[in-house]
């Protein structure tokens, strides 16, 4: 039986908390488990790319900490915590439909529908934005755009890609807003929600999350 979006959101929040409660070896194991879960749910190149980007940011964070402090262990622990927290979000997005996340936020977390939709609309925007950036880069390359030379030259050259992208993102968001309004979004009338009831597996999973969190808290503070 599949877990509902609510359980997965709670799990993501719990993992964020665990990142600060559990010791480093347990966190490393948890990260390994998350990576395995991600690739079994979505065995695609995009998963590897997303993970590689997170690793890059974690590396940057560790590098910065090493630069400004002598504590190597804290620096690496910070990077590990960041990886554990962000990978849990990747796992959630790889296994849950955006519509289900929106609905769980409204139904279970009592978030106003407008805000929940805004949050998930931003998430939906990412693949479109990536596709647009690839198409714009291709279009400008065909006109002689080349990202080479010294860093200042490169930054200036990037404007040829960034400017059309930003303008297109604005146009796209305007279109989205208009189409939402035409569909009656934001109206005061009663809105129908297809409820997502929790199953036995959800209750068992939530209990497990509570126990691990409590155990982590005891380990950390006792």
């Amino acid at each position: 039986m599949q877990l509902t979006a609510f359980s997965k959101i709670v799990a993501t929040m719990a993992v964020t908390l665990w990142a600060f409660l559990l010791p480093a070896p347990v966190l490393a194991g948890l990260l390994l488990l998350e990576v395995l879960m991600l690739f079994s749910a979505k065995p695609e190149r995009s998963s590897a790319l997303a993970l590689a980007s997170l690793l890059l940011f974690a590396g940057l964070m560790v590098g910065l900490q090493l630069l400004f402090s002598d504590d190597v262990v804290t620096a690496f622990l910070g990077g590990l915590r960041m990886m554990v927290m962000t990978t849990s979000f990747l796992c959630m997005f790889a296994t849950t439909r955006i519509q289900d996340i929106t609905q769980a936020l409204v139904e279970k977390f009592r978030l106003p529908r407008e805000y929940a939709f805004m949050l998930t609309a931003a998430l939906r925007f990412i693949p479109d934005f990536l596709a647009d950036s690839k198409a714009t880069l291709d279009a400008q390359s065909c006109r002689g755009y080349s990202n080479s030379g010294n860093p200042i030259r490169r930054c200036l050259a990037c404007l040829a890609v960034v400017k059309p992208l930003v303008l297109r993102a604005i146009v796209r968001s305007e279109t989205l807003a208009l189409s939402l309004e035409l569909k009656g979004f934001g109206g005061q009338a009663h809105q129908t929600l297809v409820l997502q009831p929790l199953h036995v597996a959800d209750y068992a999973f939530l209990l497990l999350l509570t126990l691990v969190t409590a155990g982590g808290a005891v380990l950390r503070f006792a």
Partner: protein
Amino acid sequence: MINVEQVDFCYKRNQKALNQVSLTIAPGEFIALVGRNGSGKTTLSRVMMALLQPTAGRVLVDGESLKGKKPSDVAGTVGYVFQNPDLQILAETVAEEVAYGPAAKGVAPEEVKRRVHRALELTGLAELADAYPRTLSYGQKRRLAVAAALALKPRVLILDEITGGQDAIEKEAVLSVLKRLNEEQGVTIILITHDMSTVLRYAGRAIVMAQGSVAFDGAPQALFAGSHPLAEWGLSCPAVAAVAGALLPGEAAPADAAALCQVLIEKMRRNGSCN
């Protein structure tokens, strides 16, 4: 000019988007690249522009292989106009937009000005040189994209479905620009399109792609003569070709309705049934 030699391309493993494609494109040709969605038209055009590198085979432009080259390296010889002109508009005026390409390639400012002027004249946008590009109509934006490509003085222009979503007047304006470029400037045109009447009217050669391979390569009149499985290739016979096929069996279809009328009147005159 462009030689495509036994090119394969795969987006995913074991899923060939191009399968052993070979063709030669000579200078000054007006080619229509047609076929159903997903047949490999755009992939082939992207391989010719170095936007994609073939997984097997090679592409030569003026005898030089495109292996390892970037689109910006090829841009001076081959121009590419994308379906959506909004993806590339970045400047505040039409003239600045056209100037971006040659300026990025390091062309001298005086020469850039000359090229911009010429490109705008050729595309009929000279009067809009100071206009804000995003306020142009869709057809004008497409002509602007053509002008931007022309400013790099390419000898081949690849246009990916640039006539879609336009009214008849705007479509005609874009196509007549292409015809003029081809006839007066000798620019080789490769037009990817789903509009078969455009193929019949403007192209001198039609290449049909089907399942990643070249299914037909020849004159558009021969394509619409009735002996090819057009429906299987996702194509339709233009009305002029269908009428010509019924009235003038065995003869090549005229380019458009006016030409068909002329042929019919001539035939009737010869037969003595019309004065």
